[in-house]
């Protein structure tokens, strides 16, 4: 038990060690001064390490095993009619709790002084993951080639980029990268593998990966879509402004 905790903590610490080494090296050798406010930064880094460790441990004690069993059950022929609702809601719910997304949304709220609020932004990303997973499940059930869906998605992203408010584009692209994180990936992979195993002629590796690709594509579409709508509402003056500055 204790040994397990120690190895777990060491693994999480390994995420922070390179950051500290590289930054420390540049501080001392290039800038020739120590890290600013070490009495805040070092406890902060410790909070990040211990917090992430507790987060992942907590998930793997109760929620992951149950989520994986559920994913396997809803991909079996008996409950297959529920699988879309399950994929949609699971995608939304796990993304709302994704730590890396919380970090990016906090940063966006901070620099726009609340012009972009973090919860609606995360909800837009989560809705994207939800739609992405539902569409991805639909593709696995139908057995369509993955690339057509992905290419269509990127064409949609290109068209939207043309019309979306300039301020949101980089943030929308980043939100595609942060959805494939600590909590979403294990459950999504379980769902993809369950489906691929239960439906004859599907490949667990390709189909499991395919779902994750959908989960990082659709948030770009929903975030840009939400920003475009928010601008439209703001111009009509019927609703308060969304992520505009």
């Amino acid at each position, binding site marked *: 038990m204790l040994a397990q905790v120690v190895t777990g903590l060491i693994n999480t610490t390994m995420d922070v060690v390179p950051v500290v080494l590289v930054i420390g090296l540049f501080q001392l050798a290039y800038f020739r001064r120590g890290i*600013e406010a070490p009495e805040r930064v070092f406890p902060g880094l410790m909070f990040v390490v211990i*917090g992430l460790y*507790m987060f992942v441990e907590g998930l793997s004690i109760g929620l992951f095993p149950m989520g994986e069993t559920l994913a396997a059950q809803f991909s079996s022929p008996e409950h297959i009619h529920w699988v879309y609702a399950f994929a949609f809601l699971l995608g939304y719910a796990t993304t709302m709790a994704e730590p890396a997304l*919380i970090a990016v949304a906090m940063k966006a709220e901070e620099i726009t002084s609340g012009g972009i609020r973090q919860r609606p932004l995360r909800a837009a990303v989560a809705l994207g993951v939800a739609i992405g997973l539902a569409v991805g499940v639909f593709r696995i059930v139908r057995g369509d080639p993955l690339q057509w869906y992905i290419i269509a998605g990127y064409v949609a992203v290109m068209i939207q980029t043309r019309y979306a408010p300039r301020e949101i584009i980089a943030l929308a692209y*980043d939100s595609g*990268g942060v959805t494939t994180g600590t909590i979403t990936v294990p459950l999504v992979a379980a769902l993809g593998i369950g489906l691929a195993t239960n439906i004859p002629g599907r490949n667990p590796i390709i189909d499991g990966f395919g779902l994750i690709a959908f989960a990082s594509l659709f948030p770009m579409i929903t975030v840009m879509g939400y920003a475009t709508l928010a601008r439209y509402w703001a111009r009509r003056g019927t609703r308060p402004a969304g992520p505009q500055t």
Partner: protein
Amino acid sequence: MLFEVVRDILPVVLVVTFFQLAILRQPFPNLSGVLGGMVLVVIGLFLFTQGLRLGLFPLGEAMAFQFARRGNVWWLLVFAFTIGYATTVAEPSLLAVANRAAQISGGRLTQFAVRSVVAFGVGVAITLGVMRIILGHPIQYYIIGGYLLIVVVTHFAPQEIIGLAYDSGGVTTSTVTVPLIAALGVGLASSIKGRSPLIDGFGLIAFASLVPILTVMLYGIWVY
């Protein structure tokens, strides 16, 4: 603050409970485990967000401000590459992917080589992304151009490597790296005249999940 975190976790708990009790009509298999786990998750996420404010965000910003004050672009780019490479090469989830790659390739790809190639890709990505912030170019040209390039390279890449390459795009940006490079990008964009933190500051994460896909496929073409 703790209430905020509970609100973040609540949807997952509700979804799992709903499907377990209402649809499958099965009891919780391990109720005390689930409850204990949830307490850990809430405290963990709370500590994490506090740690971001105290540690990772200020660290990324401080680096950005110091480099902007020095005005030496070359050292900034060296730093960008190093931070991208170093945070990725030791990343545990990349280790798992690299081990699998070594197995399925029958030793043609070594675990160490895969890790280096992915980490090199992230290093290049952060360097390119930082250059874009300095130059103030619109991000879409880079990202859309990058995806078109991926489509072309996929065509020539050996079949065995494609899945691995696409997977490596997802595992590169760990939960520790994301806040740091977000703070670095936003900090740079706010301290360079004429750049907007929102338009120019974000985007480094998008670069970091794109470039490794390319470097891994190119490596695959070279090996096979």
